[in-house]
């Protein structure tokens, strides 16, 4: 009785607390998205801002709504966009996989060290964030380019006769992408792995599973949510990444971020840029929503059989 009354009294307060993040999301995610969506249905115009408005109140009180589907039509008909989207997804997917393969052992090792040293290792993972992202990419440029530190060193000790092509190709693109996004994979993985009960592995071992078998039957399935969280944290921003492909990628690297930049700044075509962005958001949201539904169904389903 008392507890119920307490909850009742708390309710308005709790509502206020919960409403803050919702309000934040509404103001800074949903509203801007609808603005972008609105612009994507406009036409390019020589004005400020450089697009036509969708609604015009004409003489005689007639409200005229103009929806220009031309941008979307163009995206669908020109296979340049399809290729770019595909290539962006591919790059992001490969980056995510590399981050997972590298990040999992690192996160596992950190989770397994004694708590005193654990914080130092976590600090090292987060340390690069203390330097600007752009500066770190420039640092890589200084390392990788033809006259960069790596090539100078290798030439200097006479290991190679001519500089290695380390820069402006897929190698440098993936190297810097993985470097930049690795912490976003390690941290969620770590937070899942560190919570895992060590006795479960002892139990698996006791029941006859060797270390490798125990890893695949116990540790890996139990860290599934960490893998999903880390992959999302890497995959989603990697799809739209612009700076890294622009600065260290090869000339034929097709990334949607670059297309967006071109449409927006070079062609001054805001509606086209907005349409490209909208399609990208849809491409990302559909699989995430699908995955989410699958997850919840699995959570609810199993027990009631």
């Amino acid at each position: 009785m008392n507890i119920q009354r307490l909850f009742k009294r708390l309710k308005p307060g709790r509502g206020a607390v919960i409403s803050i993040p919702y309000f934040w999301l509404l103001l800074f995610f949903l509203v801007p998205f609808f603005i972008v969506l609105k612009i994507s249905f406009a036409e390019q115009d020589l004005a400020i801002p450089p697009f036509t408005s969708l609604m015009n109140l004409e003489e005689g009180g007639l409200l005229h709504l103009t929806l220009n589907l031309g941008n979307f039509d163009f995206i669908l008909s020109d296979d340049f966009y399809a290729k770019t989207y595909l290539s962006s997804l591919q790059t992001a997917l490969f980056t995510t996989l590399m981050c997972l393969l590298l990040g999992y052992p690192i996160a596992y090792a950190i989770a397994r060290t004694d708590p005193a040293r654990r914080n130092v290792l976590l600090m090292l993972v987060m340390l690069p964030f203390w330097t600007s992202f752009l500066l770190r990419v420039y640092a890589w440029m200084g390392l990788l380019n033809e006259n960069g530190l790596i090539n100078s060193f290798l030439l200097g000790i006479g290991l190679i006769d001519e500089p290695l092509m380390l820069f402006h190709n897929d190698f440098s693109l993936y190297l810097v992408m993985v470097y930049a996004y690795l912490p976003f994979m390690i941290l969620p993985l770590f937070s899942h792995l560190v919570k895992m009960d060590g006795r479960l592995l002892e139990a698996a071992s006791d029941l006859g599973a060797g270390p490798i078998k125990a890893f695949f039957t116990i540790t890996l399935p139990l860290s599934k949510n960490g893998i999903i969280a880390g992959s999302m944290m890497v995959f989603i921003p990697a799809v739209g990444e612009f700076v890294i492909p622009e600065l260290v990628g090869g000339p034929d690297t097709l990334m949607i971020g670059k297309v967006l930049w071109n449409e927006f700044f070079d062609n001054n075509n805001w509606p086209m840029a907005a349409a490209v962005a909208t399609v990208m958001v849809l491409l990302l949201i559909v699989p995430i929503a699908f995955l989410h539904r699958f997850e919840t169904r699995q959570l609810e389903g199993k027990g009631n059989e």
Partner: protein
Amino acid sequence: MVDAAKQSASEKPYLSIANIVKKFGDTTAVDGVTLDIQRKEIFALLGSSGCGKSTLLRMLAGMERPTAGQIILDGQDITKLAPYDRPINMMFQSYALFPHMSVADNIAFGLKQDKMPKGEIDARVAEMLDLVQMRKYANRKPYQLSGGQQQRVALARSLAKRPKLLLLDEPLGALDKKLRQQTQLELVNTLESVGVTCIMVTHDQEEAMTMATRIGIMSEGQLLQVGTPAEIYDYPNCRFTAEFIGDTNLFTGPVVVDEPDRVEIEAEELGGRIWIDHGITGPKGMQVWASIRPEDVRVDRDPVAAGPNAAKGSVAEIAYFGSYSVYHVKLGSGKVLKAMVPVNRWHEANLEPPTWGDQVYVSWRADMPVVLTR
């Protein structure tokens, strides 16, 4: 000759732990334990926390490597075998059930590691589920079960591979008291019906007494005494055991008389001599202890004949337990002696029960005290 050889072969212990030592850095967790276990025995290692019983169990399971010593199970030296290669299974404290697997998958886990054909696995899992009466819950996940149900699943999982030796680490420690008492007998029945050799670790003497055929008392890494529950209670071999199992009154003093038919101890705290009706082997004047159980102490209101095994005191405390009361009697030396007195002791003698501050006389028979030399 042949018969004698057979005899000695069958008497060979099923599990033999020889002089096992485990050191963690400078601290010695297990200090030279030697123990033999017979087939189908339910053996309890009893001791307070940090006494080394869990470390000993983990060495049997293979999760700790002994610093020295040898473990032989059914003729096979398993000292250096990895846990996953041992024919031993363990039921973990708080169970360690795999949270992402159903009850049936948890039980099947060990069988799958042995590459058992699927049909056989299904049959064995069904058999185990019936054994612990959990068939209805085969598809549940561990978090959907109560504590008692989880305990049964953990038991089924550890028995599924038909291990040569079953280890139980505080098997009922995670259950509340009422459920624990009920589960004790249920667990013993299951273990006996399966006929598995079993070592359990517990800090709960009642649990050990109820479940085990033999008990080993551990303290500071050493095995102090091994025996049946009755042997350990009636004939403790040291002060630790006497005080750890049940309750007791200890008096110390030098041996002043040591004849074949009696020993006399000059107990300063009693203000007199303790007389015991059998001899001991030891030098005269040696410092010994006498352990007298509270239920062996008689309390009288009227003076008893002065002499050994008796003293005068006043009631300092009375703890009422329904069918009996425990009197804390303060002796002249300041020592408090506990005496367990049945309630009808006073009714039968038509006496008013003594109350706080009353003068009483305590005494015991000469066959009651146990002499302890350490």
